[in-house]
């Protein structure tokens, strides 16, 4: 590392260490953040307290409207520390409603993009079927807005993005990850519990990150940008993604590519995670692409 690189390393402000509200505000232009349905509105989950679980006043999702490099965006952040970022009735409805309102404004001539901070284990089991239903509504709302304005997904922390919300991540216009973060449908513990340790050893951290980790997801094209855990770097990556606008074809529409990718792999003898990018014909990327 050069002296300049060390200096920039020491100058970093960790994004991961911020809570969801701070993350949302850190992405927006100074003085433009306007939080909606915040803690003082006290729209809590109606299902937690009766089950003996302490609710959070904003149900673990913050919705902050503002400007990012002068463009209108709504940042929707999941608070990973509350119930593992689990999506319940209220938190899921909040995400879906905010996306739909951004779509409404975009249709009416006020383009409004969305940034989703996706730190979650998936559906909150204390709200089971309503959580599942709202995740379907979140997916529908991502698709509604995505046709008009970018929906930029960010997965920053080690909790990662799992469960049904990983499907919403797959629908995002652009997906930004850090090397610390993870993305997958089912977490290692769930797979080990369902299928046994021979299928997935949930204590094998190198294995987990070799499959679900941000570096691998970007290398294999399941995410778009690998960014350092730094507020400035993430902010500039998100702003860049918003600037790029709506692509001609979204990742989740590239069915032919998905078919080719599945045909390229023998599921009985899958490649090592490190070989997958090459099997799929993805160019090797260097660490220099970070940032």
């Amino acid at each position: 590392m050069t002296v300049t690189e060390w200096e920039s390393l020491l100058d970093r402000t960790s994004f991961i260490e911020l809570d969801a509200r701070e993350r949302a505000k850190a992405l927006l232009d100074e003085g433009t953040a306007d939080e909606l349905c915040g803690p003082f509105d006290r729209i809590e989950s109606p299902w937690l307290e009766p089950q003996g679980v302490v609710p959070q006043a904003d149900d673990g999702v913050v919705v902050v409207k503002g400007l990012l490099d002068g463009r209108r965006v709504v940042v929707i952040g999941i608070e990973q520390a509350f119930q593992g970022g689990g999506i319940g009735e209220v938190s899921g409805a909040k995400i879906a409603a905010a996306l739909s309102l951004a779509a409404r404004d975009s249709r009416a001539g006020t383009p409004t993009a969305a940034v989703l901070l996706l730190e979650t284990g998936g559906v909150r089991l204390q709200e089971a079927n309503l959580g599942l239903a709202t995740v379907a509504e979140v997916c529908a709302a991502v698709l509604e807005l995505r046709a008009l304005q970018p929906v930029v997904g960010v997965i920053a922390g080690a909790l990662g993005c799992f469960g049904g919300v990983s499907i919403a991540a797959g629908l995002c216009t652009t997906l930004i990850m850090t090397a610390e973060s993870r993305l997958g449908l089912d977490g290692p513990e769930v797979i080990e519990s369902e299928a046994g340790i021979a299928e997935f050893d949930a204590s094998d951290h190198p294995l987990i990150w070799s499959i679900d980790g941000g570096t691998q997801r970007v290398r294999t094209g399941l995410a778009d940008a690998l960014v350092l855990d730094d507020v400035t770097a993430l902010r500039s990556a998100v702003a860049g993604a918003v600037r790029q606008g709506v692509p001609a074809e979204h990742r989740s529409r590239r069915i032919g590519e998905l078919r080719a990718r599945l045909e390229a792999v023998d599921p009985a003898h899958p490649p090592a995670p490190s070989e997958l990018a090459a099997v799929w014909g993805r160019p090797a990327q260097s660490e220099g692409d970070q940032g």
Partner: protein
Amino acid sequence: MSRGLKWTHALADGAVHDVVPSVITAGCTLGDDTARLVTVVPDPDSPFHRARAGEVGLREGLAIAEAVTEVVAADERLPDGRRRPIVAVVDLPSQAYGRVEELLGIHHALAAAVDAYATARTAGHPVLSLIVGNALSGGLLAHGLQANQILALDDPGVVIHAMHKQAAAKVTLRTVAELDELAKRFPPLSYDVGDWAKLGLCDELLTVENAGEPTGADLTKVRNALVAAVVRARKGPRDLSNRLNSPGAMKTRAASRRIHEELAKQWG
């Protein structure tokens, strides 16, 4: 023979086709329409060993996306009101839990299926779900929950949930008996389809004579219900807002409705 397979064959006008061995499609006359049925079925010989019992895995996600997209592309030039209904016949234990699934990005394959169904819905195709058996978790998200009309059989063999009971007990550190007890007090936790129908997500709960072996009367009843659902879908919204405005949702999803109202108010 799985319930999904039986109902698909029973409802099909003629031949049932494989997109892949685990995803089948068929034409089905519904009034003036010929709907396309799409069903995930077990494939004991699947090379994906975690997706042999009817789970929605990588190739199932892809095959659903292909089958649905094909219908949308074929009907592209038809006027809105003539676009074919698509019926997801749902009988699936879950998504496929496996290592190769995660390696290859099963979330992405399921996103392709979700995208395809939602695209069909917004293009004006009535997208219907007919739940005849189990409908769990990510599997249901990929195959069922993007529909603008959801019908389910009122039968103990129909279980709709975010996670199967044993796993849910483990994760929430409760016994199965405790979960059952909780489910009596909290409808979203219940494994009973009658309770699920009260959440506001179900457009019609259908009582049949034999959910496992549909009788002639059952088929007539379900077909009529599907025809009525097509009419409602064509008249109704193309987003999922009907699930928030249904009589069940008025009661059970009061908090969701409050969020939508309050957020719209503060949004300006």
